[in-house]
């Protein structure tokens, strides 16, 4: 389970890093999205990977096994904020495309 999670985070991060270094704005935004997925999984992972355990100590979960609820709360916040900022970035991307006539991140390149 941990191995699969780590590999998934690693693959998404490497794809994301490669993509945000590309010259087209669309690639950058996909790269940022992939990176934020990887980071969200990472936050989720720092609480320890457990299945089928309660998030808080309850009467029948008193054997000491519990899933840490804090990373789950953190990841929810991170998802919401990441989603909002990505949407905002998309708008700026479209504005840039409209003003410069190209989707190069520097506004250069041939007009299409």
């Amino acid at each position: 389970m941990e191995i699969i999670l780590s590999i998934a985070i690693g693959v998404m991060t490497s794809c994301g890093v490669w993509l945000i270094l590309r010259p087209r704005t669309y690639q950058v935004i996909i790269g940022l999205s992939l990176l934020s997925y990887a980071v969200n999984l990472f936050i989720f992972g720092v609480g320890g990977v457990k299945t089928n355990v309660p998030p808080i100590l309850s009467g029948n979960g008193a054997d000491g096994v519990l899933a840490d609820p804090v990373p789950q709360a953190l990841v929810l916040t991170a998802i919401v904020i990441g989603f909002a900022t990505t949407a905002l970035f998309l708008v700026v991307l479209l504005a840039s495309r409209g003003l410069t006539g190209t989707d190069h991140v520097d506004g250069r390149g041939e007009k299409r």
Partner: protein
Amino acid sequence: MNGWSHHLIIAPILIPLAAAAILLFIDERRRVAKAMVSLVSTLLLLAVAFILFRIESGPNGYEGVYLLGNWAAPFGIVLVLDGLSALMLLLTALVAVAALVYSLARWHAMGSHFHSMFQLLLMGVNGAFLTGDLFNLFVFFEVMLAASYGLLLHGSGQLRVKAGLHYIAVNLAAALLFLIGVSLIYGTAGTLNMADLAARIPEMEADRRMLMEAGAGVLGIAFLIKAGMWPLCFWLPTAYSAAAAPVAGIFAILSKLGIYVILRLTTLLFDSGPSAGFGSTVLLYGGMATLIFGTIGVLASQALGRLAGFSVLVSSGTLLMVIGINDGAVSSGALLYLVSSTLTISAFFMLIELVERSQDAGANVLAVTMEAYGDADEDEPEEGDGVTMPGTMAILGTCFAMCGLLLSGLPPLSGFIAKFAMLSAMMGTGAIGVPPTIAVWLLIVLVILSGVAALISMTRVGIRTFWTSLEGTVPRVLVIEIVPVMFLLGLTLLLTVQANSAMQYMDTTIRTLSNPNLYIDAVRNATVVPGVDSGTGEGN
């Protein structure tokens, strides 16, 4: 601090939030109403910041711990007010009032929701200064960043959209690094409360400590991007010089926010124990590199906006180096420098637009480099109505000369006093009395050289702007545009006159900062208010 005044701590967050919400419901065409709401909120903020500052400069130290939701410290989120955060709140409020009044001349009508975003920016900045919780810091950082994206694009135009695209991409990546750092720290230390974290770090086992330090390093990169440390700073001059004048004025505080967080976390988390001094080497040499880069940039800038942008880097570099040295006497000089340089740069950004109004766009920029700045003028607003300032050129020239003196650190203004306090402490004539090492000598030389570079650059630009502008017409400058600039420069004058009490305040602040146990105990001992149900009482 007790009774109602205790709730004042959360007011710097609530006031702009409420104002931003109200502003959303006012129609965009009712500009006067919007401006009034925004102005009242900002002035209220200034009053609150001033009261908090007065309370903090009194004899009582750490009593400003506010438990949000009435939950005890490590479980709930705390707001902590100390000398440093009170100082930053006051500085933010002062710069905000100036930038807002400036924007009322014409910039606020250049696009929609200027005032809402301005208030949300203030909320994010104030929240980041006050919070005592790492993840809450992330949330306030994002509030501040989201508002700053909108403000940077305010006024639109190709140049701003291009700079905004880079700014947003860089900051989104920085936010992800922030999250990685925070989650690594949570995974190893098991807490996000800064005071609780500081208490746990000395007792941490070696294998966990390594991961925690890695997390702190990643977290640090996120703040260094905001502060503009070389090589994370290439976005900064472009973004700041592309922003509308009042926006650039308030942005001057954002890079200081990065500095503030680094100062707070290094003094709190890495004061003693096996992790003591973590990251200080990076800050010292990174600060030097930033200062060198900023100095070269200041010398090379042809456009005034970029000159101001590189001045931000010079100021950041100086402050980062000083945090890297981690010496009490130098740091208190640096705090004075922080206040002085923020006021100066903010005033300078707003002054630039007034000065450049008399000239053709980019007239003093070589045609070769013109392309780098884009085709200007498509986004210039129309002239606003209002009282025109008499004796325009004389006042503009005086303000410009004052900015030059402040940036280069020449007497008699506060830039000189701040640099003098730092340099004399570095040379060992101050409180410490230790002969400086080679690194510190290098640092002294760099600080002085950066001042010389600022002087050369400002003189060159000043001569070109005020003495040799042959066909330049006298710009039409409104009173409410020049008064904020004069207000900020007047504050530096006040800082010069009151230098003694200012230095005493900075000394006390640094002494409190260098004893993290005060902070930790204050947060841990903060007691829950008895008998307060949720739903009653302000902010509970």
